Structure formats: structure tokens, C-alpha cells
């Protein structure tokens, strides 16, 4: 190992370690300095104990949230990408949809959550619908710019090969727009988790958001924190899955 590699490893470790220490120190100071009652600010070991004691419930609720996210996200992609294609391909479609898209984009999506609850009842649907709403626009807008980026002259080549419209779509347009579509989906993952948790806050009887709300309502701070950490892990797992599928699906790109 060269000095440089050692140095890189030290740097990589330094930040996270220093952050953890800093967080713990602040934690301690708050506790001591402001005389915050113990039950409001549990120690890490208490959080750990709560995690171990509730492993089953944490797992079940995280899985429930994951299901909602995946469902909403997939629907979002399945609607947004073809819509982007239509908008780029047909000029009149663009002029028809664009104003609505602009207006809908300005709506802070979380304000729609109560309405979804009224319309769709309690269950998977309203929650997945919110996930879809929150992820839809980043994916749509990035896909539009992805489809626009393709060099039109490539279609001279495919036409001279006698390609059908469908062949053009699958051989050129989809792979050509894929990097942008993925950029949109990556932005959308955090929004997806946010949407799922928000929906679970206001109308659900399962899921990690519901669990956080319940635990905090019971003033069970160790469990609240354990559930918050689980929700963070959910975000990390989704982002990692995104990066992995990006590497798998787009071997032609330079990956970090």
C-alpha cells in the first residue's frame, strides 16, 4: 500500500468517525447542559436495545413502506417515461400538456395527501399515489430532456436500414434517453420515501412512518429513534439499488 492509499482510507474513515463523535458529544452536552429529561433523549445503548427488542416490528413496517414505495415508483416511471416520449415526439401534445405540467409541478405535493386519503381510503392506494405524485415530475422532466438530447441524424441511419418506428424506439430512443431517465429516478428516490412516510403519518396503520408516529406519541424515544434510523436505511438501500441497476443497465457510462 502506498502512502496515498493509506491517506485516502484515513480520510474516508475520519469524516464519519468524527461526525459520530461530534453527534454523541452534542447529545451529551444537551443532556447535561439543558437538563433534558432522560426519557426524551435516550442513550445510543437504549436505542440499540429498543432496536433489538423490536426487530420484528421494525422489519415488518419497513417492508410495508418499501412495498408502497416500489409500487408508486414503478407506476410513476411507467406513466412518466411514455408521456415524456409523446411530449417530445408530438408537438401538439407538448403544447397541450405543458401548461398543466407547469401548474401541477408548482403544487407542493404533500398538500394533496389529505385529498388522496378521502378519495382512496386507507390502504396501499393513497400512499402509493402520493409516492407517485412526488416522484412523477422529476422523472418526467428528466426524461423529456433525455429524449430531446438524441441526435436526430441518427434516424437517417435507422431509416436507411428500414427500421420501423417501434424499432427506432427500442434500439435508439430508449437507450439514448436512459441516462437522463435514471438521473430523474435517482432524484426521485428521496422524494419517494418522503411521500410514503408522509402518507403513513396521516392515514395508515402500518409502515415505518406510522411506527415513528406511534412511538413518538407513546414518548418511547428509543423506539422512535430506532424507527427513524430504519427509515434512513430504507433511503440508503433504495439509492444503492438505483446505483447498482444503473451500472448494470448502462455499462457504457463512466461510473463513479
Amino acid at each position: 500500500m502506498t502512502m496515498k492509499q493509506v491517506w485516502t482510507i484515513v480520510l474516508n474513515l475520519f469524516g464519519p468517525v468524527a461526525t459520530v463523535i461530534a453527534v454523541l458529544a452534542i447529545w451529551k452536552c444537551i443532556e447535561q447542559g439543558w437538563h433534558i429529561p432522560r426519557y426524551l433523549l435516550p442513550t445510543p445503548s437504549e436505542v440499540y436495545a429498543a432496536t433489538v427488542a423490536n426487530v420484528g416490528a421494525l422489519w415488518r413496517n419497513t417492508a410495508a413502506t418499501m412495498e408502497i414505495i416500489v409500487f408508486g415508483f414503478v407506476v410513476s416511471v411507467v406513466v412518466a417515461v411514455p408521456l415524456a416520449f409523446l411530449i417530445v415526439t408530438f408537438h401538439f401534445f407538448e403544447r397541450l400538456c405543458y401548461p398543466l405540467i407547469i401548474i401541477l409541478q408548482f403544487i407542493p405535493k404533500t398538500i394533496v395527501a389529505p385529498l388522496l386519503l378521502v378519495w382512496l381510503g386507507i390502504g396501499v392506494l393513497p400512499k402509493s399515489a402520493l409516492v407517485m405524485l412526488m416522484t412523477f415530475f422529476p422523472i418526467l422532466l428528466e426524461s423529456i430532456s433525455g429524449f430531446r438530447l438524441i441526435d436526430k441524424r441518427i434516424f437517417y441511419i435507422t431509416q436507411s436500414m428500414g427500421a420501423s418506428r417501434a424499432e427506432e424506439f427500442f434500439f435508439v430512443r430508449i437507450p439514448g434517453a436512459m441516462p437522463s431517465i435514471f438521473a430523474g429516478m435517482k432524484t426521485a428516490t428521496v422524494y419517494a420515501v418522503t411521500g410514503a412516510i408522509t402518507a403513513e403519518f396521516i392515514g395508515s396503520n402500518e409502515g415505518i412512518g406510522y411506527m415513528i408516529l406511534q412511538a413518538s406519541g407513546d414518548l418511547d424515544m428509543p423506539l422512535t429513534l430506532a424507527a427513524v434510523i430504519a427509515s434512513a436505511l430504507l433511503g440508503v438501500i433504495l439509492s444503492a439499488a438505483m446505483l447498482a441497476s444503473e451500472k448494470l443497465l448502462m455499462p457504457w457510462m463512466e461510473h463513479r
Partner: protein
Amino acid sequence: MDGTGTTTQATAVAGASIRLEGVTKSFGENMALGPIDVAMEPGEFVTVIGPSGCGKSTTMLIAAGLLAPTAGVVKVDGRVLDRPMTDVGIVFQDHLLLEFRTALSNVLLQQQIRHLPRQQIETRARDLFAQLGLNGAEKRYPRQLSGGMRQRVSIARALVHNPSILLMDEPFGALDAITRTQIRHDLELLWLERRMSVLFITHSIEEAVGLSDRVLVMSQSPGRIVEEIRIDLPRPRPAHLGEYPQFAAHADRIYSIFEKLGVYKFK
């Protein structure tokens, strides 16, 4: 060998004849081209040379059936062309490769879209890669290739299905002089072997004289064909054309036409 297709090689494909009759093109008010008439014999190598903006690319797109002429017709083997020609290979000034496919699979796109037998086309693609000096580039993506290699891949893509017509729009324009001379020679060998009809567009007098059976000289916009020069040098032609006295004569002729047209304003 001459340009009339006397070759007896087994790989030879019969080139098609192309005729442009009274073709013009205007973009809105702006008359960009013609009227021009071109008649290419089967298996002939014809070069079009002319100043920038005179309508060369437009001519090629019209010949390929990718752009409808404002007036006039294109006929391939006597039949009027009213849709994009498909028995053709096209090379543009920039390579226009798909960045998400490896070099080999860019070439094999021809096989996929034309539904040709995979094994046979892949063998031919690999042979072309060898002939074009692309050994080892098969599995690389376009961004991992040099500009010259990309252009060679796009030439391979245009040839792999053995088209009877090859259309090339300044295919070597972006290359350095050394690569350009080599690739010119490689193309000439491929053509000698296959004898497809070639319409080759260039700015370079050396390329025009070095490659073709016939050079068509175009005037400024709206371009017309003002001169036709038959090049009867033996093939394959050498890297340094200066050794033929005829080369200098042909080159001089083209220069003087350009001077007469006012393309060059030397004092």
C-alpha cells in the same frame, strides 16, 4: 482494373445505377440546390466536390431518399425512389454511432434491424474490423475509441450488409491527414473487392482524385454541376499521388474551375 465492373471476384456485389433528374431543393424561400442531373453507372465511384454550403449534403440526403426533392426525381435501377432507400450504407461527416453500443454491436445493428442471419453478419463484421485496422476495438464503447477509429466503425456499419450503394458525406473530414490517407486506401481496397456504387462527397481535391472514377464539380449555392472530370489513374492508387503527372493535371483543373467560379480569390 477500371470502373466498369470487370472483376470476377466471388464477393463482388452488383452495384445499382442511380440517376438524379432535374433535382432541386429549396428550404422555404431559399433555393439551396440545383437543378442538377447525375447519372451513376452500377459499380461506379463518383465524387462530388464543391464549396461549403453549395448543397452537397442535401444532394446526398435526396439520393438516399431521406429528403424529398422540391422538383425532379431520383431513380435507382430505373425505378423512382419515393421512400428511404434501404439497399444502402451511409457514412456521415461525424460518425453518428450509438454511444450505448459497443463498436461491434453498433455494426450489428444492421443485422438486428434488417433481420439478417447473425452468424454470417458477425463474421463479416469481424472481417471488416480486421480490414479496417480495428482489431481489438470490438468490445469498446464509442467514447473509448479515437476519432479515426469511430469513423472506421461507422464505415464498417455502412458496409457490413453488402449494400449495392454506398453514400459518404465527407467521411474523413474530421480526421488527421495521416489517418485520412490510410483510410482512403482501405476504402479503395474494399470497393475494388465489392464494386458497389459509391457517391462520395468531399472538400478535398486529393481525396476526389485519389478515389474516384469520375469527379463532379459543383458551384456555389444554389449548387449546380459545372464540370465532370474522368479520372483514369490505375488502381489501387498510391498514398502519394504526386508521382502521377495526371494527378497534378486533374488537381489543377479543379483549382482553376474554383478560381473561375470565384470560390478562390487568389491575387
